[in-house]
Each structure stands twice: as C-alpha cells, then as structure tokens.
C-alpha cells in the first residue's frame, strides 16, 4: 500500500520512516512525502502514482490541507484516494469542515501511531 504523507514539517518523514520501519522493511507499506499542498497535487497529477491513501496536515503555508482535500475529492475521482487528515488543530470547526469536504478520517497531533497503524491495517 502506497501512502502519501503531506506535511510542512520535514521531520515528519524521518518520524514515519522510523515508526513504520518494520512495515517498510517488509514491503507492506510504502511512503511518499510532500511538504506542501501544492507539491502533493503535483505528485497526484502524475498518473503513474499509486498512492491509495493520503495523510495530510491541515495548517501549511500556501495551500492548506483542507484546500488540498477539496481538490483531491473534486478532481481525483477514478479511483478516489482515501484522505485522512492529521492536524494539531483538532477543533470541532476543523473536524466538521474536513468531514463535509469528504475526509475519510481525522486524527490529531500529537499522533498516536498505534491508533494510526490500526486504521491503516483496517484499510489494508
């Protein structure tokens, strides 16, 4: 399963590679990283991408995660990738907006990786 992680915090890449090291080693999961909403759209615009799940931060300079979510849900319909929002701004407003825009799940930072792993396994 290929997962695109979108976050302007660059250490997120190191963190995901560490926390999913076993899954990556066993080739159960593959991760790609984008550091902005714009970069994520560029990545998804490439038809050869195989990402089935996008984990996106919300607060990023430039395009926000919610705008990215709207773009993905509007433009990438065949097949529609799942989008899970991961944010430090886990208030009701953000949650409701994300859900209205079609988010498939909503997690807050500090992220519980055990919970994320369970969710990813359920999708897998």
């Amino acid at each position, binding site marked *: 399963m290929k997962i695109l992680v979108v976050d302007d915090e660059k250490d997120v890449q190191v963190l995901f590679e560490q926390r999913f090291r076993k899954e990556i080693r066993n080739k159960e999961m593959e991760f790609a990283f984008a550091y902005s909403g714009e970069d994520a759209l560029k990545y998804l615009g490439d038809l050869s991408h195989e990402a089935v799940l996008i984990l996106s931060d919300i607060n990023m*300079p*430039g395009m926000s995660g919610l705008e990215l979510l709207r773009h993905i849900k509007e433009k990438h319909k065949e097949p529609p990738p799942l989008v899970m929002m991961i944010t430090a701004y886990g208030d009701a407003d953000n949650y409701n907006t994300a859900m209205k825009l079609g988010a498939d799940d909503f997690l807050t930072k*500090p992220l519980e990786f055990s919970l994320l792993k369970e969710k990813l396994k359920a999708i897998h």
Partner: protein
Amino acid sequence: MSPQLQTISDLIKNSSGISDAEKESLLKVIKEADKNQAMIQFKLERIEKDRNTLSVMLQESIEDLQKKSLVIEDANKALTQTLEELRATQAQLIQSEKMASLGELTAGIAHEIQNPLNFVNNFSEVSNELLDEMTEQLEKGNANEAKAIANEVKMSLEKINLHGKRADGIVKSMLQHSRTSNNKKEPTDINVLADEYLRLAYHGLRAKDKSFNAALKTDYDENIGLLKVISQDIGRVILNLITNAFYAVMEKKKLHTQDYEPTVTVSTKKIDNKIIVEVTDNGTGIPQKALDKIFQPFFTTKPTGQGTGLGLSLSYDIVTKGHGGELKVETKEGEYTAFSVILPV
C-alpha cells in the same frame, strides 16, 4: 417748611429793626433754603432706598456666588475623579491591548506546541522500541546491527532535543510577551525577535481563521548585530505591524479569490547608524483619508470589537518616545503597505 425755618421766618416778619426790603430778601433766602433742604431730604431718602436695594442685591449676589462656588467645587471634584478614572482606564486599555494581542496568539501557540510535542512523544517511543531491538541484536551477537540501531536512537534523541527546545522557545516567547516590560534596554538580536513574532502572529491567525494562508517572506540582514532595545516593547511593535499586515491581506483575499497571493514580508537592514525593520504586505493598503489618523489613539478601521485602535498608537510611542526612533508608513490603496521601524544604533 421745617419748624425751625418757620420760627426764623416769623421772627424776621415781626422784627421792627429790619426794613421791608431786607425782610423780603431774607425771607426769599429762607424759602430757597427750605426748597434745598426738601430736595436734599428727597435725595437722601432716594439714596437710602437705593442703598437698601443694593444691599439686598449684594446679599443675593453673595449667596448666588457661594452657591456657584459650591457647584464649581463639586464639578472640580467630579473632574478630578473623572481624570483619575480616565488615567486608570488608559492604563487598563494599554494592558488590554497587550492582552488582546496575546489572546490572539494564545490559541495559535497552544496548537503550535502540538507540533513539536508530536515529535517529542513519538521519537521517544521510537527510541524505546529501538533500544529493545538493539538488545535483541546484541543478544544474537549482531554487533553491527546493534551499532546501526544505536545510531538511529541517537538521531531520535537529537530530534527530541530539537523539538523540545522548539516547544520551550514557543512558551518563552509567549511569557515574554505577557510579562510587564521592565523598561530596561538590553542587547537584542532584532532578526530573532522579528522572526519569533512573525511565527507567533502567523499561527495566532491560523488558529482563528483556518482558511487563512499567506506566503511569508523574510529577508534578514545578518550583519546588523545586537541592538540595545526594550525587547518586549519592540516585540509588541513588530507583532502589531505583522498582525495588521495579515489582516490587510486577509481583507484583500475576501475580495480577490483568484490570482491573488497574500504575501507578508519582514526584512531588516542597517543603513548608516540606523537599523530598519520593515513589514510589508500586498494587502488592501491604507486610504488617504485614514492615513493621517492611523497613529491616533482609538482610531481603527476594523469592525467594532475587532480592534482596540491602540496598536499603532502604542507602537508609535514605543518607537519614538521609548527608543528615539521613527515609525514610517508608505502605502497605496488596494496595493500595498510598508511600515518601517527605524531605530538608532
């Protein structure tokens, strides 16, 4: 005629030693004297009446003045009290302006701390897992594997340290802003100060308005060195200018949804013996009619409840009176605003 004059007249009339012509002359004089006396009597009576009237009027005036004096005294007391109240209100307003900008930041800061915490929590859990793996490898006798894992643990610990310090920095900035200024000028890195407040203002606004996004550009002159300033005060000035800049680009974005990239730039430079901090935005600009008033206390173009109208006025005082500097503005309505804080070295 008075009885005395009548007696004299009778004596003259009956006197045999005086001629008729002399009698007539004397009686004429007495008649004249009588007339004069009656006139004087009349005048005296009038004067007496006037005096009484005046006395009454004077008494009334004195009473009136006394009453007025009491009223003035009361008014004076009320004015003194009002002045004291105004002074207290002014101090409160200054404090509330400070706390309002802090309040705007607090939500942002609280969220901003979650990001470093995310790394601290997760890298520490990773370190724990890695140490278990390392023990396993050591038990198997795989020294090289164990060494590789040890390196990963080291990297995780470095990340914990880095993000722990980041959270510490965020909290310190907030405390620094809320603390009362000690009015002491201390050598300050203006670049660090500007950057800190740029981040705080940005995250503060993001916490309030999720749809808000702006490109942040910075251009810091690394050679400006340290400058002796009251850092909390100059921090407040920079924060006010940046918050205003973000507000201006947000307002413009409401009108231009397409083809508009909200941008806020913070730069520093040193020219001659002056350090200049410039905050520029490509927002709504300031209309000419408002330009003369922007540094006046309580002037605001923001809707009621959204601005105290004290931000720029306090900033102006801090820069000019507090630091002997200048606060200048250049703007074009609908296009941009650039504020320059010019501080003498």
